[in-house]
């Protein structure tokens, strides 16, 4: 770089590297946040920016927070057993708002036939207990729809 070289030729040079942004949310009334917190921490350690909204969230709160935060992915954790009542509502709201570029994943004790149903309404993946963190991280990295 010499005396005459331009320091900044495009604004792109000014931009920091975009990081994958994920909303981790506990849907439903259960307080079992161990999994959600472990995953949130692992995603952070993998270099992602994680917004954690805490326990007892409604579908409306989750969707609106995801929109306001402009996240690439939503990780829903639910162990209350109310997943079939609450997750379809999340997917429905996203659809109503015309959002198709946010990756939705679910973690929890979800029986096999419910996993099939959830996937049919647009949930990208369901992680059952025992799923390695590395698998979750890789899945999000490989499947977020926006270029980083």
């Amino acid at each position, binding site marked *: 770089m*010499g005396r005459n070289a331009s320091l900044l030729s495009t604004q792109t040079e000014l931009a920091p590297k975009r990081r994958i942004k994920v909303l981790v949310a506990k849907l439903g009334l259960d307080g079992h946040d161990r999994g959600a917190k472990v995953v949130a921490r692992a995603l952070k*350690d993998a270099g992602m920016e994680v917004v954690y909204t805490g326990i007892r969230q409604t579908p409306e709160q989750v969707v609106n927070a995801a929109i306001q935060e402009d996240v690439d992915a939503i990780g829903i954790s639910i162990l209350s057993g109310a997943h079939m009542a609450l997750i379809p509502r999340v997917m429905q709201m996203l659809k109503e708002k015309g959002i198709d570029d946010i990756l939705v994943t679910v973690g929890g004790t979800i029986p096999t036939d419910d996993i099939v149903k959830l996937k049919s309404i647009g949930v990208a993946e369901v992680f059952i207990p025992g799923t390695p963190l590395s698998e979750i991280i890789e899945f999000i990295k490989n499947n977020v729809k926006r270029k980083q």
Partner: protein
Amino acid sequence: MSALKGDQRSIARIISEVEYFNPSSSEILLELMKMSGYSHVIGITGAPGSGKSTLIARLIDEFRSKDLKVAVIAVDPSSPFSHGALMGNRIRMQKHATDPKVFIRSLATRGYRGGISAATLALVEVFDGLGYDKILIETIGVGQTDIDIMHAAHTIVVLVNPGTGDEIQALKAGIMEIGDIYVISKADKPEAEDAFKQVLFGIEGGILGQESDWKPTVLKVSAMMGQGIKELADKIDEHLEYAKKSNRFYQQIKSRRLQTLKSSLSWFIENKLEDSLKSNADLNNIIEQVKSGQESPYNAVLKIVKKLF
């Protein structure tokens, strides 16, 4: 622009453009700056863990009861190791997540100094231009970034957590000593009274507060129970009146724009320098010379600056 009509998705997208300095954001920002200059910008600071998010959640209640539009920018630190971030400030504000007239955005510091204040202040322009009445900024509570950001706010609210020992000493660190309003949390606890007296003493003695006609106030609140929040909101509005009358309101807008420029610039230079030191062979030679004791660091600076600019 659907963002102007309050479409949250559009607003969120604009913010992303702006916070990442994307090429397209320059024009958007300029458009919005043409419309900005009306919002009341309130900085909420205090030591980490002092209850800023809880207080903000309560203030949103108050502002919403007057049907004001409220935006919150909550800054959280990034990890210096992984550069990832874990942001939990929203937890306490989530009950407002479904209110179309409230917009909450978390922002990670991303390990660059000027960058975060530049991004935060640029976001203030965005929310201002979009017609939000109150813009609340929650900072991490320490460091130069806080000072840069707070200097650009109209009203600085400092949250004091009682029972931490010598409250005044704790406050005499950077931004906290120039508060407009001091808030003692946990009003229901006996320690609160001590902290209240100490801060009052600090204000009377001129140790706390800025040099201006505004005499800082100190209030006790219990954010948990919602006590003292209305008084705080009234005080914040009183400060707004003062700011408008004294011209401080407009000075601060100018100062915030200047700060956005300065922060962007310093962030850019810092990064550029960092990059060049890593990649430029000439510069590397100079560095190696310093390391092996063949060159003085001061002389090296002159050489490096010459090469760079």
